[in-house]
């Protein structure tokens, strides 16, 4: 599935061309799941005129890819995610997901935010079943016997899914506030995946977790992705996490208003380490080399989010 590895190098600092990611899969005729065409986002900043957040973004993300958006705070990675989600709209260009332009938030995309990812008034099981129940029937449709049969089957499916996520049966009746942050994110992922969306968007979903929980969730997410291969777009400012999870990496830099024609995309390409089994990735020499390079590229103007490459024996991000 992955083409010959290309080592990340300063050459990639040039704005990525439109098909920066796609060629690696061109021969396999991979379907393009997410497409951004000359996308720009700007907003009025009062007396300072217009502030450009994103400019000239051209990206094509093939189906089944695990794309990681990396960059320092304020570079526009979350804005890019919100464009794909339909929560924001570009001031120029077009965003297409699953073959259709994004006009509003809908069930084409699953979404796991950093926090507030679960409905606090529903139990774990109710949270996970909420989406498929909505998809099946409206308010009146819930009164029919067929809906209740469907609900029984869905319940079994939800329990299986939660068990796969590492939840115990007694956890499923709990409310979100009774769970740890890591458990909540496991449920949030199960909740999103049960809808079987073509695209799963995660916005710094593991940022607030402790290293060991984060590590186990990374492994879990990777194994789920490897099994069913949804298209995943994962926003992070953690280089190790990006290199561990991503098959494709997009590094965004801050846009400068004095260079309106220049894109925010600094690096957009497939990762060579993605070929290695997950557990071995961070032990490879390539990994450490890329880690060092990405730290320099992604966090050029700020050391706030810089991380050390992981120790040889572990992959903790």
């Amino acid at each position, binding site marked *: 599935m992955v083409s010959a590895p290309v080592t990340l190098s300063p050459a990639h600092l040039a704005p990525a061309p439109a098909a920066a990611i796609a060629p690696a899969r061109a021969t396999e005729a991979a379907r393009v799941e997410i497409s951004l065409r000359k996308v720009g986002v700007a907003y009025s900043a009062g007396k300072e005129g217009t502030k450009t957040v994103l400019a000239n973004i051209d990206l094509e993300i093939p189906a089944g890819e695990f794309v990681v958006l990396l960059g320092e705070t304020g570079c526009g990675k979350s804005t890019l995610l919100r464009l794909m*989600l339909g*929560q924001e709209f570009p001031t120029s260009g077009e965003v297409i997901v699953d073959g259709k332009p994004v006009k*509003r*938030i*809908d*069930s084409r*995309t*699953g*979404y796991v*935010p950093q*926090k*507030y*990812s679960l*409905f*606090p*008034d*529903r139990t774990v099981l109710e949270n996970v079943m*909420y*989406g498929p129940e*909505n*998809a099946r029937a*409206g*308010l009146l449709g819930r009164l029919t016997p067929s809906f209740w049969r469907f609900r029984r089957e869905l319940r079994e499916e939800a329990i299986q899914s939660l068990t796969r996520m590492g939840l115990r049966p007694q956890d499923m009746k709990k*409310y*979100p*506030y009774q769970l740890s942050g890591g458990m909540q994110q496991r449920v949030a992922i199960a*909740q*999103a995946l049960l*809808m079987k*969306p073509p695209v799963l968007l995660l916005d710094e979903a593991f940022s607030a977790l402790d290293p060991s929980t984060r590590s186990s969730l990374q492994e879990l997410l990777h194994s789920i992705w490897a099994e069913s291969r949804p298209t995943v777009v994962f926003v992070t400012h953690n280089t190790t996490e990006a290199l561990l999870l991503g098959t494709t990496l997009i590094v965004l830099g801050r846009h400068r208003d004095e260079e309106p024609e220049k894109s925010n995309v600094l690096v957009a390409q497939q990762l060579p380490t993605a070929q290695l089994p997950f557990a071995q990735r961070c032990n490879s020499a390539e990994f450490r080399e890329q880690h060092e390079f990405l730290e320099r590229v992604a966090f050029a103007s700020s050391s706030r989010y810089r991380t050390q490459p992981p120790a040889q024996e572990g992959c903790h991000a």
Partner: protein
Amino acid sequence: MNTAFHPADLAGIQVRPSRLWTQSLGWILFAVGIALYAQFSIARHKENPEDRVVPSAQQLIQGIKSAALESAEEDDPVDANAPLIERFSHSMLWKDTLSSSKRFLIALVLLIPAILLGLHMAVFPYFGALCLRFVTFFDKIVALSLLPILFIVFGIEEWSKIALMVIGVAPTLILDTFNIAKGVPREQIVKAFTLKSSDIDVTYRIVLKQVLPQIINSVRLNLKPLALFLFAGEMIAATDGLAYRIALMRRHMGMDIILPYVLWVALLLFLADAILRFTNRRLHPWYQPL
């Protein structure tokens, strides 16, 4: 380790009073209030045994008996030998409580649309933009200043008093609901749409369900303003009701009736608040107030 008790510790921020201390402290001010009243009353009765301004315990008991077991002056008298329940159900206190409670409950029901208005203003941006400025302005109008207008429009019967209560509390409740609903994290709404929710689902099954405990708390806080407007209306134009009776008794210096009525109103409001708090806790076990 020195575990000796120091009186200065009582004033500290970091101390944790025991359950016994907490319970005992909670009653101290009641006891002090009663003691001060008793002393004041005794002192006044020494000067004038017929004093009616600060009634003695006997006068108060007599007042409570006549309020709770005798009918109002304007009604037919109840048989003194009738069972207590029957005497109470024909009493002045019960009649006034029923009249005031009816007005209070009708006003509470009429405030439900205010809650829904605030919710919709928060959830639907265009609707919010349409209404917010108007409601914020309306909130600044002193409701009592509208009373003459309400009397002209609704007459001096029931609806003018109910309208006063609704107009007095609704803007606050609308704005409170608006702010509470606005506080629902954006992530929740986005998430709901990715889970195939419709606008109605998001409004009622996501936002309303999440903010309902806080709205009930807001209603609890508004119980007293609601009673305040009810009393204003009843004192100005009514033929029955708790405030009507208090205003009537003021003319006769009937403190032996007024004081039990004041305590009765406080008790009713306390009970209404306790019922709402209990209901809130039972209906929303997931709610974690800050």
